[in-house]
């Protein structure tokens, strides 16, 4: 069965640089979620989109922005990167906003 696809899987950036993470949801899933998982931490919700509109917002820094496109894929844009942004970034998708969320493999971002 098709799963959530995230790219890139690994990303190394320097402080103050910009990064773009991409997420391709499971086909027919209309809702996308972004989570951040720091080392040894539980995943923290950042933002979600339903039918290409922002649906819910969590602890996402103002330096980050995201959107969902017409083909339902989503991109998380991160600017002015800080060392503390180093984490595993997960995208998840669901068939509707009540269904279970299926997670991608994550993008490991390292900021040096």
């Amino acid at each position, binding site marked *: 069965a098709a799963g959530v696809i995230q790219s890139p899987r690994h990303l190394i950036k320097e402080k103050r640089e910009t990064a773009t993470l991409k997420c391709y949801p499971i086909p027919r899933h209309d*809702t996308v*979620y972004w989570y951040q998982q720091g080392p040894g931490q*539980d*995943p923290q919700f950042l933002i*979600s989109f339903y039918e290409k509109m922002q649906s819910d917002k969590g602890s996402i820094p103002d330096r980050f922005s995201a959107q969902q496109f017409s083909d339902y894929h989503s991109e998380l844009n991160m600017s002015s990167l800080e060392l503390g942004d180093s984490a595993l970034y997960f995208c998840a998708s669901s068939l509707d*906003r*009540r269904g*279970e969320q299926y*997670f991608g493999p*994550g993008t490991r971002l390292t900021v040096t």
Partner: protein
Amino acid sequence: AQSVAQPEDQVNVAEGNPLTVKCTYSVSGNPYLFWYVQYPNRGLQFLLKYITGDNLVKGSYGFEAEFNKSQTSFHLKKPSALVSDSALYFCAVRDDKSQGGSEKLVFGKGTKLTVNP
């Protein structure tokens, strides 16, 4: 606000023995409860969910969970543990969106399960 507590950072069991990973929750409305498993350097894999219905929920890989409303608990169980079950287990809760709750998942801190051969 929603919250989840996993009181045990680590659980160790012998292969073949039953296992339980504990979870308690707090939500303002009807709870949507989930269990996920995470293997090293991997994403979160969905195991099972409770939304409504029977209090005993069966999921993937022989896991099940028991919803107890009076104790606000949703413990994960398996009758006979395998070495390959060793991983990090996360309990998560979400509010009922239809009652104005958030759709975000709120996770517990995770419980590291080690099954010894």
